């Protein structure tokens, strides 16, 4: 690795030290180097949302961020947010309302949804649709996802 750099970051609460190539994007870093395969690769050009993770509290596309840019950052993935129970309410709503089928978009969708649910107490269905408009799902008709987010938000 010619241009390799050492990075230190916190992933799901654990401090991680790794030597990486600058060209490795964050999602590959998480999946390949750390074995956190819960976040998925769907397009590698930032459009589908399958790779959505959280960096310093903000949702980002894992394929549009280099691992080296995450040096010193706090990264959270679906696995960590499941174990911490932060996603529990949304996950239950998704499960009860069948808001997933193949599950490939689901981690990204949950991260995007949680971004909304954690910041807003009330939302119209149109606003929910707008917030998840960057997360591609081919299996569901999106409706159950909107229903689930509505339920998690309003109870």
């Amino acid at each position: 690795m010619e241009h390799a750099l050492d990075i230190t970051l916190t992933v799901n609460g654990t401090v991680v030290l790794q030597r990486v190539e600058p060209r490795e994007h964050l999602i590959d870093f998480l999946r390949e180097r750390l074995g956190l395969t819960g976040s998925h690769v769907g397009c590698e050009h930032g459009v589908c949302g399958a790779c959505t993770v959280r960096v310093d509290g903000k949702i980002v596309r894992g394929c549009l961020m280099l691992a080296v840019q995450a040096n010193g950052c706090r990264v959270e993935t679906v696995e960590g947010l499941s174990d911490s129970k932060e996603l529990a309410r949304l996950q239950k709503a998704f499960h009860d309302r069948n808001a997933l089928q193949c599950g490939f978009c689901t981690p990204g969708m949950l991260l995007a949804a949680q971004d909304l649910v954690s910041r807003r107490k009330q939302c119209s269905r149109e606003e929910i649709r707008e917030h998840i408009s960057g997360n591609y799902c081919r299996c569901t008709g999106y409706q159950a996802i909107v229903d689930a987010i509505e339920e998690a938000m309003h109870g």
Partner: protein
Amino acid sequence: MGKAELPLHAPGTKTDRGYIGQSVPRPNAQRLLQGRGAFVDDLRFPRLAHVVFFRSPYAHARIRKLSFSRAVKSPGVIGIFSGKDILQHCSPWVAVLGHLKGIKSPPQHAVAIDRACWQGEAVAAVVAETRAQAEDAAALIEAEWEELPAVTDMEASLQGAQVIHQELGDNICFARTHDTGGVDEAFAQADAVVEETYGFGRHTGVCLEGRSLLADYNAAEHSLTVYHSTQAPHMMQDVFSRHLGIPEASVRVISKDVGGSFGIKVHVYPDEMATAALSVMLRRPVKFVADRLESFLTDIHAREHRVRVRIAVKQSGEILAFDLDDLTGIGPYSVYPRTSGIEGNQVVNLTGGPYKHQKYRGRLNVVFTNKNLTCQYRAVGHPIAVALTEGIVDKAAAALKMDPAEFRRKNLIPDDAYPYAFPSGIKFERLSHHKCLDLLLEKMNYGKMREEQSRLRKKNIHRGIGLAAMIEVTNPSPAFYGVGGARISAQDGATLRLEPTGMVTVLCSVTEQGQGTEAIFAQIAASAVGVSLEKVRVITGDTGVTPYGGGTWASRGAGIGGEAVLQAGRSLRANILEVASRILNADREALDIESGQVIGKLTREKKLALEELGRIAYFRPDTLPMNFQSELTVTRHYTPREYGFTFTNGIQASYVEVDTDTGFVKLLKHWCVEDSGTVINPMLVDEQLRGGVVQGIGAALFEECLYSPDGQMLNGNMADYLVPMACEMPDIVCAHIETPTKQSQLGAKGVGEAGTAGAPGAVMNAINDALSPFQASVTAMPFTPERILKALGKCP
């Protein structure tokens, strides 16, 4: 969400209700919700190598020279292989079937030799320690090409000035004419003849998980294990065995979690075959994951058709005949093993499907082009057949100044006319078109909607209502593929095993890609045996473990796999009671099972817990009578036999608003009334329908694979190829009628493709309804703003 009202015994069928009809959340969804699933790209293996394919940049070119000398020195490279190298280990295939008379296609290789026939065809394979290193090396391959003329226009292909495969003589893969006779006479007798030409844009599946395969060859055993994102593991087991020369039972195909399939993943792909061959050649695991750019170029495309259709009607509204001419452009090869002739064949079979006319003529030409290969994609020919049928029906209704719902009412096959022989040769067991139409109009409040439409038109707000009635192929018998010589199984099996602790394990040959297969099998098994749902575990997608079967395609999972599970469950229940009768020294007929307990049938008194029965049967058989052996594992298979295809019916409606200044279409609402027989889990079925509808909306408004005249794909990425996203989609109302099939105890028909079959036609009719005050109409999908503006005369 809610429960379907399932009668305790549907007429002519025997079903223990139990969990059947309940909207139970899927047990196997929990791991997916936590990102703890196991997709192929998640798996880790020692010495895993990665393959990247060097692909033709041209639609049609001779490979003059391929030099790997620079590339092979690139860091991390394990080997670089040409088509000839791969040919030593993987034989080519020809995708033809006996029942498609006259179908022809040349042999196709895993990696092309001498000539590339579409942009994206693999001409070399680069294997390296990482994907990135393989891509670096691929960039160093030196290639010299001789460009050949590319055939990209369907009409030109049919004319045959340039023949892609000289040895075949022309570009016609498959041609067919179906003629009942009396068609011209029917047209002569008609009071009105209405004609239209419909265009359907080529589009593709865009599964979020790219095609993925990890092949693991064990040189010591000459055995191959393939972890494959596929719908049909047994079919692939057979294909790998025959083409790689490995004994069938030494090939094991495992499909764990699959990230969407929709038919895209039920075909044999050359790069996937090459990957398996490379594992054999290199004696180590090799993985291939198609990235998104590759997916657009090489995942099968579908649905490029130009169809001319005519309908003959009487003043009363009665349809006399349909006459159809369908031209469809596929890739340069028919796809293996199902062939690329089936989609067009279905258009001929299904046009006019809901209606009671008797005269019909359909002509089909399936032609090769130098674009990407095409094959079966969700609902196959239905979206086209339904759209053109429902489009011309609306046009005929307008010509007769009749309301479109009323026109359909006059022509839908009556609900008591079954069994019914349809003019294209298909047979209907029993459908419910009128009941579905009634329910739809009620759910929509049709009359009120027409009033609202009329009111808003005066304010220059243009809304449209579009209907699409449909039939759909499900639960196919061997008539679909087997009769043509394909080693594709139309039967499936289920093994149910009572575990010592009273749990039940279900192994079934139908597979899961998220539609809920494993959930409904658990519901059926729990109901059939008499245990609660959380005691059931389901395993699918492993040829080494499950019975032999067909997997998922043509909406057959519930109807065929479910039936096998039901029958096995009922047999297991009987066997459990045999054991119980010996333990309790009681008459078998006086016992039953409920919630994991053996009970007295009359008194409902609990007599013996299943975990106790299991302990005795497995660990203390010495306490049972001398000549008695417990059999607590039961396997049953099921094949639909009476009907070649079990047809379902449904009807959809779309409500849109067209902005006549911009040509933009806003989808206000969508309805889907479907009769798929016994509904096992309404919540799962509803989201299957919705997902299907959204895919159909994609075809109608957004999706098209655009090619330049010289065969370059112009929009092969997620920014330029437009898939439906949440903001533009309407809420979709689903409702059900249940007419069970009598071919099985379960009575379930299929439903996975219904949404996709009807949505494009419904949306098209809604747009044209909105445009009708302007005497404007659109006929070529997708209906982009430009096409609508052109129809309105707002731009040239």
